[in-house]
């Protein structure tokens, strides 16, 4: 088994078919990487959403307790 091309330029050119081969490989790689990365992006999104909800919850509890406090004296 040996490297089939004489030079790197040859390898990239592939007898004129390089453009097709490299586009095919490039797009495939991009698609597969997108598939692979998506879960961690989504996970980060979920984390941010969780933090947002927790903030909202805190505020709600705040508002609720304020309301009870103002309601009690009256």
């Amino acid at each position, binding site marked *: 088994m040996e490297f089939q091309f004489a030079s790197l330029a040859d390898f990239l050119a592939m007898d004129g078919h390089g453009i097709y081969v490299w586009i095919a490989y490039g797009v495939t790689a991009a698609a597969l990487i997108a598939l692979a990365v998506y879960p961690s992006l989504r996970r980060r999104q979920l984390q941010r*959403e969780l933090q947002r*909800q927790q903030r*909202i*919850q805190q505020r*709600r*509890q705040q508002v*609720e307790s304020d309301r009870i406090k103002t309601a009690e004296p009256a």
Partner: protein
Amino acid sequence: MPVTPESQDLLQVRDLSCRRDGRRLFAGLSFALGAGAALQIEGANGAGKTTLLRTLIGSAGDFDGRILWGGSPFPQSLPQLRESLLFIGHRAGVRAGLTPLENLVWYGAGRDDALRALEQVDLFGFEDTLCQELSAGQSRRVALARLYLPQAPRLWILDEPLAALDVAGVSSLQGQMAVHLSRSGSILFTSHQPVALAGLQRIDLAEYAVDEFADEVGGAYAFG
């Protein structure tokens, strides 16, 4: 106010809690409904009354706890329950393109029975008008006419049956409910209005509310 279970009870609910989109609406609900008994579910808007009724007829599956029909548990006994069920929901199941008479016939009534039922809900003269040309209350009455058919099933589950009815309609319906009870039928219904019915039991869903509210609600939508 859980009712003590009897062997004669048709429908038994034990420690039920229902969810909507994962959020628990109420928990720990138990009651039993026997023949000749009526039960009114009360509760604020959004308390989960509709969800409860839909759970009992098997149309909403997200619940915990036990539901028994004739002593055997859900979901095995669901087909039996459905055989003796008459359910009228917020959407009443009245086909706008049919006349009131045709609607009742479609629900399995004979022509004469249907005519008599329509007369009882005060739709005499409208039996051949298309339902899409009826007023809000009139089209609701078409659905309720099913309760006046002679072969009405044993268990009635009614979601806001009094909605959109005028005063005469309300009292007529109460009368028909009393008749059904006297024939040993059972009725489970929700209503925001008081219903005059002898021996009526009531459950207020507020007593079973769960406070998952604060951390659960909060849609992901914001203007902007």
